[in-house]
């Protein structure tokens, strides 16, 4: 069967692809890992990240509560958003607890762990109040979240 025969060539392109694939795989693995804290500075960074993430979630919940009180948000959207914030706070705590705090970091650890706990329970209460359309509870919760946000802001300042 006559065909155009092409002289064999070193598959450089193939090797390049392999390298690229390897790099991509490595990048995925690296970016997915939670690096264990090694020293005090790393731990502070990690704690700061957790505090900022918690601020974002509590802020979201507070915003949603405000919208519910002014009847500016759909029940379903409020419910889902509060649920998502509650879940996110859960995983923020989990990933902070997974890290061994270095010596001397206990005050930071205790302070942040307590704040995360309070944040999670406030958001959980907000979800419950939202489902019940419990206006009084929502008003209370907005106040509670304001305090938590102020405390988190203080922690962030301490860590920055």
């Amino acid at each position, binding site marked *: *069967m*006559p*065909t*155009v*025969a*092409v*002289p*064999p*060539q070193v*598959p450089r392109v*193939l090797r390049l692809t392999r390298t690229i694939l390897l790099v991509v795989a490595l990048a995925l693995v690296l970016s997915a890992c939670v690096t264990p804290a090694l020293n005090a500075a790393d731990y502070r960074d990690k704690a700061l990240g957790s505090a900022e993430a918690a601020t974002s979630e509590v802020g979201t919940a507070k915003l949603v509560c405000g919208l519910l009180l002014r009847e500016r948000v759909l029940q379903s959207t409020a419910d889902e958003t509060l649920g998502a914030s509650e879940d996110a706070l859960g995983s923020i705590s989990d990933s902070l607890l997974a890290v061994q705090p270095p010596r001397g970091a206990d005050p930071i650890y205790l302070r942040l762990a307590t704040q995360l706990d309070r944040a999670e329970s406030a958001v959980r209460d907000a979800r419950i109040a939202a489902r019940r359309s419990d206006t009084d509870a929502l008003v209370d919760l907005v106040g509670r979240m304001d305090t938590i946000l102020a405390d988190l802001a203080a922690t962030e300042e301490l860590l920055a």
Partner: protein
Amino acid sequence: MVRRQDLSGRQLDAALQLLDRQIVDSDGRMVAKVDDIELSERDGELEVTALLIGPGALGSRLRGELGRLVTSVWRRLRTDARPMPGRIEMSEVVRIDSAIHVAPSISELESVPGVNGYEQWVRQHIIERLPGASDE
């Protein structure tokens, strides 16, 4: 086997121009890509006598490990003892522009063994069994 050095540069150029172009039937239906070409010697001149299509032809052009894999899988899937890639005679080509236009219709082309066998299998065994496969 025709080696590259047997061809004059211009001839090779013309032949290579055909490679990887879309083959289109008389109605403008897409048939296949030119996966390879068949060259024959006539009166001391080399000419393209057929367009070769399907994995059997593509495998040899992919080269290397991958090419061998494609070719051997294609061979396994064929029932004939000495499988040949699908071919469309060069005499059936009517016009070449951004595509290669051939005179027969796609159903005439597909009646030749080796041409779009997988397409026909998928059509018969999967797509036509779904409701509405023949609706406009």
